[in-house]
């Protein structure tokens, strides 16, 4: 789905975290160039 694109993974502490998003996308062959987990309050 993200073939040829560079992916930014922005997770959320109370949702899905950045590292989990990145791990999932890398498992699908995506190039993750930035990942972070935010805390929305």
């Amino acid at each position, binding site marked *: *789905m993200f073939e040829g*694109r560079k*992916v*930014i993974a922005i997770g959320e502490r109370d*949702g899905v975290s950045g590292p989990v*998003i990145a791990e*999932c996308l890398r*498992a699908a062959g995506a190039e993750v160039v930035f990942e972070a987990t*935010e805390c*929305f309050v």
Partner: protein
Amino acid sequence: MDLENQAAIRRLADEVGADTLVVVLGATEMQGLELAASTLTDGDPSYAGALAGVSLRLPVYHILEAGVRGGLPADVAEEQLGMAAMVADVDQIEAAMGRFRSAVGAAPR
């Protein structure tokens, strides 16, 4: 959206070009999700960060959207996202992401 992350994303967009980037979000609370999506498409609405007044128009997706999850290895999706998908309002998330992509003309390219 976190100010350091805004600065990092702006740097990335400058370095590699915004048209090569795609964003995948993980927030399941709608206010935070829409704020992040808005910042990455239209710019920081709080005018506090590096994306203030910067309309990157990045295509935004959510990791729990069926179209995204469906592209992942099934075992990884189930192990990593199964619980989140059960407790989150995925229909609401999909609708919100669809609205953002339509509004900025950022449908899948």
